[in-house]
């Protein structure tokens, strides 16, 4: 199976499912005005957008969207983590303002993507590792919630983020080893499963 097929499949699945759930979460935010919902929903929206642009950039090679993809996803996952850790309204509202500001900068990054240099390997490695680490932190947090209060939602979310973390980790060797396309493909498949479980957690919990 060519690695581009799994990569495109992951992008499409990530983009569509995250977009769908982001819309539902943001719609709920309009009704109950929970800051955590906004942070989570907006982060999913950004991740969905990064996946969509990555898919499109496969057809327009002059768009160097790697910067937007890696930085956008890492930052969005970081906001998901912060939204879970913070409790007080004023902290969450401050996070919203920071997220909106950072997202505006990310859009600038996307707008200037044709003029950006091709992302270098060390930076890609760092950003990819950051995504894996943040997903692992989120997995650990949901796991601790599950041990404290065993709900199906926290179990599935912990499993989803564990698989996402593992998937990102499996893509790291391709930046340092000469022939690691197989591992990259496996990483994509693992992330596909992670996204499916994430979708399941929002559907059946």
């Amino acid at each position: 199976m060519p690695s581009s097929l799994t990569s495109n499949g992951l992008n499409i699945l990530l983009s569509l499912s995250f977009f769908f759930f982001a819309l539902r979460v943001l719609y709920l935010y309009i009704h109950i005005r929970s800051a955590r919902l906004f942070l989570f929903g907006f982060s999913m929206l950004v991740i969905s957008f990064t996946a969509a642009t990555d898919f499109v950039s496969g057809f327009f090679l002059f768009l160097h969207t790697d910067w937007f993809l890696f930085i956008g996803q890492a930052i969005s996952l970081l906001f998901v983590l912060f939204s879970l850790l913070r409790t007080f309204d004023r902290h969450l509202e401050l996070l919203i303002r920071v997220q909106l500001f950072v997202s505006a900068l990310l859009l600038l990054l996307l707008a200037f993507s044709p003029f950006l240099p091709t992302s270098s390997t060390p930076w890609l490695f760092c950003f990819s590792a950051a995504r894996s680490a943040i997903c692992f932190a989120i997995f650990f947090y949901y796991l601790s919630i599950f041990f404290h209060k065993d709900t199906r939602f926290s179990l599935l979310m912990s499993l989803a983020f564990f698989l996402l973390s593992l998937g990102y980790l499996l893509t790291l060797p391709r930046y340092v080893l000469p022939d690691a396309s197989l591992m990259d493909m496996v990483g994509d498949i693992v992330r596909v499963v992670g996204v499916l479980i994430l979708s399941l957690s929002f559907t059946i919990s």
Partner: protein
Amino acid sequence: MKNDRNVNADLVAFDAAQSRSTTDELIFITQLLRSTRTMFHIDELLFWLEGQFVQRLQMQVAQCWAVQLDQFGQQTLNMRSQVYRDPSLPVHIVTNDQVMLLAKRIALSHENSFFQPVDTLFSSYQTILLKRYGLHYCSGCFIQQNILLPPPNSDLAAQCLPVPLRLVLLFFVHHSSSQNTLPLVNAIVEQALRIAKDRHLLHPLYEGPRLLPPPSSQVASLPPLSELVPRRLESQELLRSSNPLSGSLAIADKKARYLYKYIDGRLTIDRLASLLHVSLAEILPLLRLLLAQKWIQLYTSDGRQVQSGALR
């Protein structure tokens, strides 16, 4: 002065029994003595107790049912108050006919205390629902004393008569280890009812239906209802242990949902009513619903939290 003497007597009596009290009981009673100074109705004390049981004893849901007498002399068992640990828990899971039947059974059998898995108490469907939200066990107790329980503090209950105290406390918990807390609960409730009697929240049987209204000085210390400020309560479990898209988080009632959108923590009840072009009588039931479902909390204009009983 008389109250202070009674309080001192409470403290002296409590000191005498201190050797057999646990640390938890000490903490509870100390806080109870402090909190009851600003309470004006027994429902506030019951609500406070349930809140403490949920918070400190790791209970998920605490309910208080009481036998009441309506103006026609009919005895009914009604829920006086309930507290959830997780505000996102759907109301219908623990507020339904099956739970009411259980409370009635306990009231009729005068069962002092029990602790059982929910499988043995409810139908299979109800058990599945309860277990889905982690409510694996149900415990409770029946309390009966020769003192009068005033009617609920609400407009609807204005015509009800005081009745000898018969309460059923029901708790829903996660783990079987919560069984060990039942003796503590019984001890605390006993002390709480004694304190309530000293504070005139409960009345001796001989007073009969001639219950005196609260002293005017106590009534004056609470601001008028229309000047209270509702504030939103953020569910801490949102996106952590509860799925926001499960359908249980949205406010079911359309009018209450509409009202909730305008609550910003600064507008008083009066201002909200005029903003929405409704009367106070129309907005109060919606606020009660939001309060009961833990979407909001009430505060005075200077930021003091008000017990939920103020809205009844």
